[in-house]
């Protein structure tokens, strides 16, 4: 099944990006210092952005870098710095309850097995569709045309979330 001659540069790039992304994601979960976890999370976001670029979705890759690797990671780092009250090496420990740890590992293993089995047993047909040249233009037309209601609803939800976040973090003074 493994044919070395069919191995192209595209495949090699995918394997490298996927490997880096998965290692960084494991780092997020396994580092005992939460600052390392946050930095590892940024690397994961950049890896996912690279996957988007590889899938011909440049616009989404740029959004991923701007929103995730830029804004969200800074937000998380700020929160981590504000809320650290123990020594750094003990900020991101696994749960002390052994039962929870084993249950979590077991559930994860079962989920992973089910997903891999589902992907492995499905018969994938090869589509050979020509890609679109101007996917950003099509995205803009879809967003401002058919999906305008969803777009506006998302805008309102973002506004509500930002106002709510400020209110919750500031705390309400009771008179």
């Amino acid at each position, binding site marked *: 099944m493994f044919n070395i001659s069919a191995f192209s540069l595209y495949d090699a790039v995918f394997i490298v990006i996927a490997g880096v992304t998965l290692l960084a994601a494991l780092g997020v979960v396994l580092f005992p210092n939460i600052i390392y976890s946050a930095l590892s999370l940024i690397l994961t976001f950049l890896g996912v952005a690279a996957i988007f670029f590889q899938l011909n*979705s440049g616009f*989404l890759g740029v959004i991923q870098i701007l929103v995730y690797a830029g804004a*969200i990671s800074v937000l998380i780092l700020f929160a981590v710095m*504000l809320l650290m009250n123990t020594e750094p090496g003990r900020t991101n420990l696994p*749960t002390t309850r052994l039962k929870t740890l084993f249950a979590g590992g077991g559930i994860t293993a079962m*989920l992973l097995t089910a997903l891999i089995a589902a*992907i492995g047993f499905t018969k994938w047909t090869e589509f050979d569709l020509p890609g679109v040249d101007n996917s950003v233009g099509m995205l803009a037309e879809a967003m401002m045309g058919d999906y305008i209601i969803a777009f506006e609803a*998302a805008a309102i939800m973002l506004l509500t979330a930002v106002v709510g976040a*400020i209110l919750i973090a500031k705390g309400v003074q009771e008179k």
Partner: protein
Amino acid sequence: MIGLPHYLLLGSFLFCIGVFGVLTRRNAIAVLMSIELMLNAVNINLVAANKFAAADAVTGQLLAVFVIVVAAAEIAVGLALIISIFRQRKSVELNDFNLLKW
């Protein structure tokens, strides 16, 4: 050689790492980070399905944009809640978040 199944596999692994983090971490911020991992895995699936099954449309990419929007809102509100609880409890450990328990 690399096709849709490989991208789906990558998404599955990333999602399961996120699930493991949510279930076993003690720090609330680490749980939020794991949720971000899961959302990213879903985005990979959406974009890959868009490219390999319906390359002449942008529906998958559009859905991924909305997922990113919701993720940004979620992380902002989530961190605000954690900061607010930290003020009362002086802790970010999930075991100490028992304000609604009697």
